[in-house]
């Protein structure tokens, strides 16, 4: 029993954080918002970092790392509000395909960055990043036809998030493994989004002065931000545990994933409200970067099973008796 992240895991996350901080700042988000909102150069950079192959077996040219490592990188993707479909392709589709029989060349193509995989599930009223995808995955993998790729003009569903590209849904049956993995990775991105918004609000509170002192010196501001820090502190480990439980195939994994998704979504949407309040009127403008993170948070909180969906799953597990609860059952 050991819940510590390993030095290797921390170093991996650190290196990706450093790379993204240097190459994917708010200026990039504004550029993407102004023009075409996907950029092959950014994608190629992620490929060159080896991130597309993170969960691809070494036999297929990847790093063969696990879901916890993937979740740690998903956090970093959320932290910089990454628009490229790295998480969907490399951290959700790849691990699922790696477990599938007969996958042909797709894993090599994912690792090489030549495959981009969109994900479909009946829970989502749309499919994200279909038009730039080479394949889409529901219960099995399909190549994306020109018709499908073009399916978004018209009509693409416009998201409040200017960097999200949504197309009409693809008919597909439920795929529980896909749902759990996607919900987990969405929770991980929400942690990164929440951490970034808390950082932005904290930074602003240090430099914005009113009544002769930084607003961050006022207890009213301090305590709002402190409460945000508490929410994050206790949402994070729920995501790590869910990632490891899903990786280990534990029976409690679905409940752990729902817990992680709810906790991360509540932290992100709650901190979004705190962050705009701390920014005041500035936070209500498009000129402050905050809005990109807020909008991504709203989108991801409801994606891959909204709060009500995951609460209902927990309800069946916790109240319905689906899992053992109490002091002896911290981990099942």
């Amino acid at each position, binding site marked *: 029993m050991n819940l510590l992240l390993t030095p290797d895991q921390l170093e991996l996350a650190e290196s990706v954080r450093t790379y993204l901080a240097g190459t994917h700042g708010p200026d990039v988000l504004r550029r993407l918002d102004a023009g075409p909102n996907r950029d092959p150069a950014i994608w190629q950079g992620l490929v060159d970092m080896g991130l597309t192959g993170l969960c691809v077996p070494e036999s297929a040219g990847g790093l063969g790392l696990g879901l916890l490592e993937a979740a740690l990188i998903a956090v970093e993707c959320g932290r910089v509000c990454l628009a490229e479909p790295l998480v969907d392709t490399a951290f959700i589709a790849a691990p699922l395909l790696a477990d599938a029989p007969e996958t042909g060349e797709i894993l090599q193509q994912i690792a090489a960055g030549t495959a981009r995989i969109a994900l479909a599930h009946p*829970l*989502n*009223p*749309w499919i994200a990043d279909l038009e730039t995808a080479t394949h889409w995955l529901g219960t099995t993998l399909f190549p994306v036809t020109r018709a499908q790729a073009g399916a978004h003009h018209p009509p693409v*569903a*416009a*998201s*409040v*998030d*200017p960097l*999200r590209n*949504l197309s009409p849904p693809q008919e597909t049956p439920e795929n529980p493994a896909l749902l759990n993995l996607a919900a987990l990775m969405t929770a991980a991105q929400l942690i990164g989004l929440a951490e970034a918004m808390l950082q932005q609000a904290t930074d602003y509170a240090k430099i914005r*002065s*009113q*009544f002769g*002192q930084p607003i961050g*010196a*006022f*207890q*009213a*501001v301090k305590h709002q931000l402190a409460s945000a820090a508490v929410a994050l502190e206790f949402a994070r480990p729920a995501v790590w545990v869910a990632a490891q439980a899903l990786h280990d195939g534990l029976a409690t994994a679905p409940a752990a994933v729902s817990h992680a998704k709810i906790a991360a979504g509540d932290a992100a*949407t709650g901190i979004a*409200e705190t962050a*705009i*309040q701390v920014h*005041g*009127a500035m*936070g*209500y*403008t*498009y*000129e402050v970067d905050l*809005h990109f993170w*807020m*909008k991504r948070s*709203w*989108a991801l909180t*409801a*994606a891959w099973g*909204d*709060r*009500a*969906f995951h*609460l*209902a799953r927990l309800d069946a597990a916790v109240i319905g008796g689906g899992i053992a609860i109490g002091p002896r059952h911290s981990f099942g």
Partner: protein
Amino acid sequence: MQLQYTTAQHKFRHEVRDWMTAHVPKTPLVTLEREDGYHEHVAWERTLASGNWGMVTWPVEYGGRGLDLIEWLIFEEEYWAAGAPARANQNGIFLLGPTIMDYGTPEQKARFLTPMAAGEIIWAQAWSEPGAGSDMAAITTKAIRDGDHYVINGQKTWSSRAAYADWGFGLFRTEEGSKRHKGLSFILFDLDTPGVTRRPIRQLHGDTGFAELFFDDVRVPVENCLAGVGEGWNVAMATAGFERGLMLRAPGRFQATAKRLVELFRAHEKTAAPAVREAVLTAWMGTQAYAYNTYAVAAKIMAGGKIGAEASLNKIFWSELDRMMHRTAMQLLGAAAELRTLGNGEINAWLDGYIFSLSGPIYAGSNEIQRNITAERLLGLPRVGAG
């Protein structure tokens, strides 16, 4: 206490209802935060004025109907029940108008009030400056007397309606070297005066409702100063009182939101989270309580009373209630909440409403400031320490 409307009040309600039924646009207008939508809303102001519904509580000589506050509440109930558009002239009719009536000269009343009620001149607010948001007394924009004009230099920001409106009002430092609340004057100015530059500010939702205003040697006639020179702070506080107080947010607006929320809940009942059901009931209770409170305050004012710091309780309550109702709606919409237009092709008004509701606890004096006012002026807690 009398919970029944008089026959006259019933009659008035039906008069409003009939007119609204006949005149409220069948399809919702484009958002007031966009230029095309702004003009649609100004046209609506003029339609209202054509029916003499511009500002029912104003005296008849200024284009009002001289109605009392209960009739105003009835008007607002019917207005929101009819799904009528937002008021482009909010700043004028609810904030500046009452201020001019209290502080204006006969000439100023004659000059400004009638076109205001007629919707001919739309007013923008110009309170905040980059360094003076919650701390409004930190205003630095100067208006220096030069003969029969003031010469204004400086910058205002987050000025609501300033992107497209005709005139603006705000506080300016008329006494050089004065500090804080002293030496400020309340000045009205034509937004097309040479030297005024408007820079529309894009808001969260992408549209441009408010603007930055740059003043470069802008010459404003001295007769545009409201009340005495240096009296600006007190006049502004009175205006802020109106804003936070009774008239900025009529209960009908929120009761209409609560009703739509109940309908949304009924449509999503099967998939709603448990606490959402309770939130919907809390929304109804909250909007009813806000209505009761407003009717009571209206009666108090009609009996000669005043609104003081209780205005802060109001502002905290409606702004946080409105945010809660829209947050609840976002939860009910689930995965569709992020979509700008819903499956039926309609605009996702709940999303826009949620975004707007996030500004409620910020504008018109942040709720942090309101809680300070409540604690210090209503509860008598000491001012020592950080606000």
